[in-house]
């Protein structure tokens, strides 16, 4: 059983490798355009709400903590505690998505979604080309959107193991689904740990 557990975990790590490269393409695009259009990126990032972003970062880190503790409970046969911790994880995940939703709404009503309706009022004041700011927003929506999609999938996965776990499917001998979902969850957290400073904290000038 040990061999099987290590094998499935290795499989999950490999999958995470593919996810790193998947997001990596977006990070590459980000790097290139930030280097080329630095001021536009500063202007764009100033419309981000750092406090919401920071809260979200804290929320995700807490959810990773509860997830890691849940895996530990699975290992040590504390089923009830595991279920509670998994539910807390889901709660944190939902909170993250809720806060993100608030942010998205804010951006949407300010015409900050790329496309024909895009508008950026402060462009001349900041001395930047609104097209370049649009690129910042394209990457913002693409990167956070893809991240949010992975969060939703993650919540789905955790829901699955909460249900199975509540029914007693896992034991100290067999808890690899819990461990592997945990790995996925931590990965999604990791992506956000990088997204936050890159998208929100570009420069010192912040309107909040």
């Amino acid at each position, binding site marked *: 059983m040990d061999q099987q557990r290590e094998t499935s975990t290795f499989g999950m790590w490999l999958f995470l490798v593919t996810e790193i490269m998947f997001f990596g393409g977006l990070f590459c695009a980000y790097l*290139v355009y930030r280097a080329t259009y630095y001021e536009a990126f500063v202007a764009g990032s100033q419309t981000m709400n750092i406090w919401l972003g920071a809260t979200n970062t804290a929320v995700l880190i807490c959810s990773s903590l509860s997830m890691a503790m849940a895996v530990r409970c699975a290992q040590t046969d504390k089923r009830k505690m595991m279920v509670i911790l998994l539910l807390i994880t889901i709660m944190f995940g939902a909170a993250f998505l809720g806060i993100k939703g608030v942010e998205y709404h804010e951006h949407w009503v300010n015409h900050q979604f790329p496309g024909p309706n895009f508008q950026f009022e402060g462009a001349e004041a900041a001395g930047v080309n609104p*097209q370049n700011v*649009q690129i910042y927003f394209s990457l913002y929506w693409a990167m956070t959107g893809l991240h949010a999609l992975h969060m939703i999938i993650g919540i789905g996965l955790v829901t699955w193991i909460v249900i199975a776990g509540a029914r007693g499917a896992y034991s100290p001998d067999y808890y690899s689904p819990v461990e592997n979902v945990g790995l996925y969850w931590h990965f999604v957290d990791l992506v956000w740990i990088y997204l936050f400073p890159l998208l929100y904290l570009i420069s010192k000038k912040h309107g909040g």
Partner: protein
Amino acid sequence: MATAVQATVERENYLNVDYSLKSWLLTKDHKRIALLYLISITAMFFVGGFFAMLIRLELLTPAGDLVSSDTYNKLFTMHGVSMIFFFLIPSVPAVLGNFCIPLMIGAKDLAFPRLNLASWYIYMIGAIFALTSMLLGGVDTGWTFYTPFSTSYSNTHVIGTALGVFIAGFSSIFTGLNFIVTIHRMRAPGMTWNRMPLFCWSNYAASIIMVLGTPVVAITILLVALERLFHIGVFNPALGGDPLLFQHLFWFYSHPAVYIMILPGMGVISEIVPCFARKRIFGYEFVALASIAIAVLGFLVWAHHMFVAGISVYAALVFSLLTYLVAIPSAVKIFNWTATLYKGSITYDTPMLYAFGFIGLFTIGGLTGVFLASIGVDVHVTDTYFVVAHFHYVMVGGMVLAYMAGLHFWWPKITGKLYPEGWAKLSALFVFVGFNLTFFPQFILGYMGMPRRYHAYPPEFQVLNVLSTAGASVLAVGYVLPMIYFVWSLRYGKDAGPNPWNAVGLEWMTASPPPTQNFDVTPVVTWEAYDYEHQDEEVSVGH
């Protein structure tokens, strides 16, 4: 003899254990999944071949008279998309790799059998998207989907085709993931890394590329689709974007992708040459390490597709140098195969004929690649038929020949039947002659300046184009014949027995076709790989 035939017919194997359609469509047996892939990719091969035929017919005459230029753009795009994404990339790994790797390492199946089946279904869904787009009117951006044409200006079914490729990419990723885990964790007792067949090493290296590279093209295609849908400007210069960023991201995968295609093919050759030369392969460790080196170095050279696109001269210098380096491990392999032949006892069965073809044609293709690595030469011949000839030499002269070699080599193991050797040799001859007649003139055409992706050309190029089309017809015969005789052999072929080639390797130690669980008893390996001298001694002593 009659009793032996009867015994083979009655013994249960993976094919006859259950004949129902459901058992095939819900199978978790890697051998059956390999056959499912065989059918799908053969179909996509002929789809791609159909487009190739139309291209060559158009190019018989200098004027653009068979199809309009828009249609021609669609033809070469769809030829490229079906051949590259739906035939070449899955071919050896998904068919021969899926079938042989567990057998070669002494395992019952791959590490994740259900993921394997999912891979096939995902491939099929991707293929359906792509085929539907083709039927609805096609795509004209070139298989390379360069922006901003693909994102902003093309009015063809870009998103449908791109989605098909995106989905098929996941099939590739999961197969690669499966292989890596299998090779690490499911080798039989005694099967150390250094005793593993080189075919496994090559597939392992190719799987590393699949896992690391494919996600990047996936996100790139996703961005193209988003850009088309929402008119964002990530790759569009009119909106501040950089079309070269697309090219960087695209080629970051697509160059290593060609190594995904060729490495498993090289692995096939590494199995066949020792068998038909009756000699241990020369320099086993070097061939194994060369596979890994190709995989790693292959990731460092992608911008050699962009020398004239507008990248900085300094970047071009860096990539040119790295491209020269990546040729070295491939050359190492060619030297090793050739050295294996020295003082070997060579027989010229069909797999070996294809292997010889591979060694010669891949060398030509590879060397012309080195010409292209030189920026000065590349500027002159880029986007001409020289490049087309180069990659067809390595892809068709190399990869497809290796695939055919592998199919013939393992056909007795897969089906338990022997194909008709005479017809097979004739086919191989058609393929070799047809191939060279098709593509060698294209080197000359390209050097003389005929551009690629144009449906009309100056009249002085006609003779060479006619030769090329004639060659294509011969080549087509060489591809159709095996379809016929392989199917014929299923019913009328001689029974093969477990080891018709007297080859070394765990897959030859089990019955043909193998039982579902591959081995009745898990083998324990105590001998080195490619031990052909002992094999021949034992066989002669046994008689």
